[in-house]
């Protein structure tokens, strides 16, 4: 089993992702530079957080045109498991691998804090070990995490059970008060219709050991491992 963490100029959560995958879960993990053009032999590809290309133009807009993104798109279209965290989620929406867009937080503030997430659909490779309604404590760190989409897209996301995590309070109640950034319907993470591409603003790799304050991100990595082993 092999994983790839893509590095763009300005990625800064690449080492955290590598640490979680390799040190915590023992998955052989390579860094793949944005100028590379092949993802042959990988079972999991991660687009990490950061500020690719300085967030110029729009977050993720320039990374989308990196040479490696052609391979990422082909890999995803062939059914490969792909997860985009934070800036990686922004790259996925800019690349149209996931619907919608991420815009400036409602408050205009960069928010860096632990948040509670309510698990939605679990019939996917990323949350198959979680329970629907389970509450996860995972940090966010972003200025542009306000998920937006038109009404038709939202209806499609709901109908296809593509909303995997929503911001909630400690008890699991999804409310306006628990929405940190103004995201439509408190959306924190979605998958594509094919259920092999997952984008989320929160950082599961920063919640992978008790000493980090939470191990709740592990259910995502464990679910991926279980899926790949089967």
């Amino acid at each position, binding site marked *: 089993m092999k994983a790839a963490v893509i590095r763009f100029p300005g990625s800064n959560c690449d080492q955290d992702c590598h640490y979680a995958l390799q040190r915590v879960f023992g998955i052989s993990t390579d860094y793949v530079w944005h100028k590379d053009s092949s993802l042959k032999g990988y079972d999991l590809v991660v687009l990490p957080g950061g500020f690719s290309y300085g967030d110029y*133009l*729009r977050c993720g*807009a320039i990374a989308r*045109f990196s040479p490696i993104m052609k391979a990422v798109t082909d890999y995803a279209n062939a059914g490969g498991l792909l997860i985009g965290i934070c800036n990686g989620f922004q790259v996925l*929406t*800019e690349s149209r691998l996931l*619907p*919608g*867009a991420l*815009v*400036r*937080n*409602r*408050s*205009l503030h960069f928010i860096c804090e632990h948040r509670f997430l309510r698990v939605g659909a679990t019939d996917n490779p990323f949350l198959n070990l979680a329970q629907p309604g389970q509450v996860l404590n995972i940090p966010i760190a972003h200025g542009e995490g*306000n998920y*937006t*989409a*038109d009404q038709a897209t939202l209806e499609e996301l709901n109908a296809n059970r593509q909303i995997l995590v929503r911001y909630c309070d400690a008890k699991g109640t999804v409310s306006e008060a628990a929405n940190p950034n*103004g995201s439509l319907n408190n959306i924190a993470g979605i998958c594509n219709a094919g259920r092999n591409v997952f984008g989320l603003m929160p950082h599961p790799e920063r919640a992978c050991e008790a000493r980090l304050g939470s191990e709740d991100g592990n259910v995502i990595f464990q679910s991926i491992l279980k899926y790949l082993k089967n």
Partner: protein
Amino acid sequence: MKARVTVMPKKSVLDPQGVAVRDAIAHHGFPQISMVRIGKVMEIEIDEAGPDAEARLHEICADLLSNPVIEDYVLQIEG
């Protein structure tokens, strides 16, 4: 050939920067201003523009310079 591209957030998308600036203007003593929306202007220069230059610019506007999910663009050719 020169071109000017104006990119604005769609009317349906909340523009929190615009709202913050509108509120600042109100605090500045001009509360009659009811709406501010903030976009981007890009000035582009093209060497040896071919006959398809405008069509290619539209392509770039839709594909890179704006995100059609959240933004609209206007392309002006300035000769």
